[in-house]
């Protein structure tokens, strides 16, 4: 029985392996998409993969890159930096990949950048928000579409101030690792810059993977805060929101990673009134976005992602950005593409976008929104409502504040 099973499996797998080879077009340009496709965090990247695939499809429909179609190499990062590095290097060496789109996990992004630096391939990042990635640790191969921690924190604070102007006391709750600490600083700085009258009445770090948030909820309640800011993500954020609701937590919550259907689906009505924000929202009120949402829904209506999401938007823009730059440069050569990318601007689905030349951080006014009830939004569960754009002049980090030596030399970006 074992033998039959093995033979059957081998035959089936063999057939499946043949298929992509047949479908491949003539001399395509290869883009690598570094996506978590297995393991417990797979869900994080399903939307990103769809966004990249959709972008490639659209670009190819419009004539591809310099007349060549894009072929997508999807590699499973397994959320493991070393594995990612090996697989991406293989893609560059074997398939002569010309752009790398990725990736969730800041160490994975760093691995991508290491490969991009070594083989002169641009890396366009749809995730990985640490400030210093485009700051003190700047490496020219990296172009970041995802916002950085400071911008993201500012956008949340901006939205809080608009939706809940009466808020005067906030509590900061973050995960106890580098990103959580950086986010806490980001929130504090943003509060000072946007509304110095708001007081931080408490700040706590909790370990990743906290099962029971009651001790923290007690502290929030005891502090008298009327709003909570958090950069928690994934299961921790879901637990925080759910347990906060059953605890009867009065203050609403502003969350860096709250604007994700995977989170909101897991929380339901408990999230109504909370605030989320990311580089893209499907509710942005612009002609470009409306057209995009319509095309997307046309193609994906019957999938788990019937409407575009923040992740879809970011990964779509990341892919699009690489293609636009290559088309404008008329080449896939790194030096030429980099030159075009630095300062590149166009009207993206998320609004007018500029790639800042000095640090390669994409600058874009960031949509924010309140979570509203089911019947007024595209998804069958409470989701981010109409987008309020946090303007660039409020959230942007001044070039001189980035810690990036190239920006210090070019204070206007």
């Amino acid at each position, binding site marked *: 029985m*074992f033998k039959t099973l093995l033979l059957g499996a081998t035959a089936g797998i063999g057939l499946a392996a043949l298929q992509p080879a047949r479908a491949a077009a003539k001399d395509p340009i290869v883009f690598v998409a570094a996506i978590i*496709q*297995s393991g417990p965090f797979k869900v994080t990247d399903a939307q990103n993969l769809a966004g990249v695939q959709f972008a490639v499809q659209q670009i190819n429909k419009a004539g591809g890159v310099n007349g060549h179609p894009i072929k997508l190499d999807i590699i499973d990062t397994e959320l493991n930096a070393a594995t990612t590095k090996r697989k991406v290097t293989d893609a560059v060496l*074997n398939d002569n990949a010309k752009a790398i789109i990725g990736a969730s996990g800041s160490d994975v992004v760093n691995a991508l950048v290491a490969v991009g630096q070594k083989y002169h391939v641009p890396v366009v990042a749809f995730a990985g928000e640490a400030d210093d990635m485009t700051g003190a640790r700047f490496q020219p191969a990296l172009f970041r579409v995802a916002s950085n921690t400071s911008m993201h924190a500012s956008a949340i604070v901006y939205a809080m101030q608009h939706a809940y102007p009466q808020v005067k006391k906030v509590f900061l709750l973050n995960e106890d*690792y580098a*990103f959580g600490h950086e986010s806490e600083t980001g929130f504090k700085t943003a509060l000072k810059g946007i509304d110095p009258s708001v007081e931080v009445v408490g700040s706590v770090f909790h370990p990743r993977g906290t099962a029971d948030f009651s001790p923290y909820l007690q502290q929030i309640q005891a502090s008298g805060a009327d709003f909570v800011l958090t950069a928690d993500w994934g299961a921790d954020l879901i637990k925080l929101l759910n347990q906060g609701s059953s605890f009867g937590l009065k203050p609403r919550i502003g969350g860096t990673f709250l604007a994700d259907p995977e989170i909101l689906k897991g929380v339901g009505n408990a999230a109504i009134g909370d605030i989320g924000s990311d580089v893209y929202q499907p509710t942005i009120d612009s002609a470009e976005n409306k057209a995009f949402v319509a095309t997307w829904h046309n193609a994906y209506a019957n999938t788990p992602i019937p409407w575009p999401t923040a992740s879809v938007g970011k990964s779509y823009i990341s892919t699009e950005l690489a293609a636009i730059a290559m088309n404008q440069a008329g080449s896939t050569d790194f030096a030429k593409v980099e030159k075009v990318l630095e300062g590149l601007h166009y009207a993206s689905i998320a609004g007018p976008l500029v790639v800042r030349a000095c640090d390669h951080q994409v600058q874009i006014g960031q949509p924010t929104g309140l979570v509203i009830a089911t019947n007024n939004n595209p998804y069958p569960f409470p989701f981010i409502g109409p987008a309020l754009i946090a303007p660039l002049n409020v959230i942007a980090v001044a070039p001189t504040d980035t810690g990036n030596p190239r920006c210090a030399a070019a204070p206007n970006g």
Partner: protein
Amino acid sequence: MTAYPDALAEARSPRRAQVLNLHATVEALVTVALLAVLVAAPALFSRATINDLGQAVCLGLFAISFNILFKYSGLLSFGHAAFFGFAAYTQALLLQSFAGLPVPLLILATGLSASVLGYLIGQICVRRSGAYFSMTTLAIAALFYAVAFKWHAATGGTDGLDSFMPSSLMLLPRWHLDSPGISETYLLVLAILIPVAVAAWALLELTPFGSAVVAVKHNEKRAAFLGYDTHRVKLANFTLAAGLAGVAGALWAIDNSFVSTDSIDLSFSTTVVIIAFLGGSVWFWGPLIGAVVYIAASDWLSALTPHWQIWLGLAFILVVLFAPGGITGLVKSLWRLALRPQAAANV
């Protein structure tokens, strides 16, 4: 264990000795061939393959070091990545601070530091055996992961450490390379890996130390009453395994020019168990084969289906149930099966 070489017995049982010798010779030849293919690989395969092979051999050495504990001391570590990861970080930090020193020297220093760590941790772990040992190593590795995860200043936390690069690859300090190519790095890895692994093999298979380790594994009580300090024997082997895992971690850091918490987390400790048993724990070099197969198979499977880990899990269950010797054990028993009638015919 080596066949007991006894002239008298050989004279009395020439057929049996012949077969035993044949096995030993074939094993030696296969080992030499395996190592020769690894060394010649840059001339035989594409750069992408060498890139994969580089990681595979580092993992392979790591799996060998795990197996040294399991095969020779019967200790199943569930936290072996603690030493590997510790060494990978140490190597990265050493390269950042002492980039001018010859790399082999730094690797040696890292390996030594890992064995010192192994000696200290072994004091706690080796006092237990069986499931206790496994769970204690697991808990200690979890603690190490927690430290690497939180201590951002030293380890880079979730960002990991990068931008360290050996400025001189070999002992000759003048050989400066800004960015060594894949093959150069690969050959450096092998230049360290092969002598270290062969030395460990020789130590365990050919010297009295190895026979003491095995004696303690087979019957700890009797060994103690024959005068063996069983705790120290096990501790010595634990230290050896930790040091070897350390060398593997150091090479891994150099091969990847990158270190992250992945190299110290619990799933990595599990992965190395899987690799070692897939390749086969009965043959010293089995885990090396296991690493190559694991990387090739997981790449192949993960390109086919996002649910490849179900196949990995099933394959592993099948190995445990039906081929406890792993791939090399399977080949070995097939080879013995094929040889048996022949040997009988020779009488």
